[in-house]
């Protein structure tokens, strides 16, 4: 493999992509959409709170009083503490039932239960009719963390402090039918936003890759190129170029995101308390590192597959039919994240997260909203890596055989033969 030629192909591809209108458009538009979406939902969620009537039920953790004080001190939310009780184990369930009934009757908006926890002193649950407002949840969560810290942190157990800060507030929705877990976790935002990024970029860039190859094929440029570089050099260069463009786009977005988090949001937060949505927590270093791993591998795998799909087509019309099989797993993978996020440890979620085509979505969602055993995460990454290698190998062979073929598009059986023999 002539690395200089690979570099030249990659360079051309990169420049062609970065200069394209589609690239500039999406690079600027997508963050814009997120901002619009974010502020609209933020506005919608904030406007309907005139009063938040809460109760605190302390199962003998000793921080109930502190939490009550902190909740009342939140200026951004009009919280009224209706009741703050410390109950002995025997009557806990009865008190909780009474509270839930109060919610159903409309006398109360929600209540916090503080349960003793051997590791971090107390874990909190939030029972309410409405648990979907990120601003409220974020605020309550921080009040709980602060209260726990103040009562328990003595300066000796520094390492545990971080865990308390990272603890999510468990939310339970109370309705006429009963009580069910759900509502809003901070982890949802990052899973959704980052999963969406993987989805959009693989889908968009994969399609562009296939389209570019079909164009090169139909304009017969390919004849000129394939006489000068090998099919593998050509494919490698193209994929590197596309990857480079993808990473550039990502870097721009992350840069914009950082500017937003560091400068724009604090300014907004002064005015309306949006900062309660703890972004630094949602996009923690751990989350971002997993994102980079799953993004890179998933992107590479899909872009390679799309390159192979493009090589088998003679015209853009043909490509439109052929593209669907490549898009399907991306769609399934992305939309499965909604299931996986709510059922991270269900059997189906586990299965999905070990199938390389879906791993970038399903495993990323699992590590983000739950804490699956580390070996499962690594197994998923390993299988995905294997998937990337298989797709690169297979695509290179299909590519080499079909890139100069014109006429009838190869059937699945023909493609299988190419992979086996070529």
């Amino acid at each position: 493999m002539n690395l200089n030629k690979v570099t030249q192909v990659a360079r051309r591809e990169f420049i062609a992509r970065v200069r394209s209108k589609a690239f500039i458009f999406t690079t600027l538009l997508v963050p814009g959409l997120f901002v619009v979406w974010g502020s609209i939902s933020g506005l919608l969620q904030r406007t309907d709170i005139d009063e938040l009537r809460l109760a605190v039920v302390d199962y003998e953790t000793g921080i109930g009083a502190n939490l009550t004080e902190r909740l009342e001190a939140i200026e951004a939310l009009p919280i009224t503490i209706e009741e703050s009780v410390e109950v002995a184990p025997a009557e806990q369930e009865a008190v909780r039932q009474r509270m839930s009934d109060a919610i159903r009757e409309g006398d109360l908006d929600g209540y916090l239960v503080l349960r003793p926890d051997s590791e971090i002193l107390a874990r909190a649950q939030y029972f309410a009719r409405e648990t979907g407002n990120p601003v409220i949840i974020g605020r309550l969560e921080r009040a709980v963390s602060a209260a726990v810290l103040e009562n328990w942190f003595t300066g000796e157990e520094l390492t545990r402090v971080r865990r308390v800060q990272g603890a999510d507030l468990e939310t339970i929705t109370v309705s006429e039918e009963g009580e069910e877990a759900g509502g809003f976790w901070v982890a949802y935002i990052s899973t959704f936003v980052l999963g969406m990024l993987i989805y959009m970029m693989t889908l968009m860039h994969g399609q562009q890759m296939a389209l570019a190859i079909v164009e090169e094929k139909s304009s017969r440029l390919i004849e000129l190129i394939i006489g000068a570089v090998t099919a593998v050099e050509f494919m490698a260069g193209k994929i590197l170029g596309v990857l480079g463009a993808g990473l550039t786009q990502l870097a721009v977005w992350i840069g914009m995101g950082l500017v937003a988090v560091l400068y724009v949001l604090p300014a907004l937060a002064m005015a309306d308390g949006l900062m309660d949505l703890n972004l630094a927590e949602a996009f923690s270093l751990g989350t971002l590192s997993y994102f980079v791993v799953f993004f890179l591998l998933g992107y590479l795998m899909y872009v390679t597959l799309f390159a192979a799909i493009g090589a088998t087509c003679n015209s853009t019309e043909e490509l439109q039919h052929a593209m669907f099989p490549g898009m399907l797993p991306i769609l399934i993978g992305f939309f499965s994240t909604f299931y996986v996020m709510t059922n991270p440890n269900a059997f189906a979620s586990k299965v999905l997260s070990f199938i390389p085509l879906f791993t970038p979505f399903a495993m990323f969602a699992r590590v983000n909203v739950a804490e699956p055993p580390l070996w499962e995460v690594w197994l998923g990454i390993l299988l995905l890596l294997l998937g990337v290698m298989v797709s690169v190998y297979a695509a290179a062979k299909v590519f080499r055989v079909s890139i100069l073929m014109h006429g009838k598009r190869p059937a699945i059986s023909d493609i299988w033969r190419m992979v086996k023999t070529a």
Partner: protein
Amino acid sequence: MTAETAIRCEDLVKNFDTTRAVDNLSLEVSPGQIFGLLGPNGSGKTTTIRIVLGIFVPDDGSLLVLGHQDPLSVRDQLGYLPEERGLYPRMRIDEQLAFLGTIRGLSFREAKRRAGDWLENLGLAEKAKSQTLELSKGMQQKVQFAAAVIHEPDLVVLDEPFSGLDPVNTRLLKDLILEQKARGATVVLSTHRMDQVEQMCESICLIHQGQAVLTGKLDEIRASYGKSTVRLDYDGDASALAGLEGVREVRDSGRSASLLMDPTTDAQMVLRQLLDRVTVRGFSLEEPSVEDIFLDKVGYDPRHEVES
């Protein structure tokens, strides 16, 4: 160049599914000359070219390109102008030219420099930043030619380089091809323009149905036909030219015609017959033109569309 021959093909065979595109084809191209590759559409010319350039692998036969059995091992010494032109439609032509140079082994810096020089020479300097789409057909063709030779290859293969060019650009391209020869490169010219072949090529190979039906030095080929062709300028009814005794084929062009005589025919006898039938404005005895030879070997078949 050190190799004795630029290209030597022996008994090349290439099949596509059920059709045999190249059928035991042998040809030899001496270095430093302009070599004409002739043949009707679908004769296997382009397939042969692709084999020589290493784009296709032959099913059988032996191949020696610039002294190497595998053309890909000397791919940076090969230049190619494909018949169906290909340039990136939305790429600046200076960058395009440089890119096509780098994938033939030039460094980026050198390719960029040469791309600038070429555009200067072609009178396209002010178009350097334009996209292919903004260029006229003739300009695109010139850029495409530059792309084929920017890396100064030892072997340049040009597939139908003159198609679609106006007379001015045809003249320019001819000069550029001669420059390549002067530089010492071997040029293989595949074309239907018989007049170009006549003017430029020292040797030719005529391919028909995948086989080399005629190959050798152009002068020798023509001499071997002898002065057996009558060039006739006439006024009158074309149908009067039918059934001339001693003439085996008439190629009528309206006011002039080529008459292919049987080897034993006396030209005077043909002239006497003609004087009775049409008004003769000119009558000369010549060696056959390449076109005559082409049609003689391939056989004129009106169903077969021949590009020009």
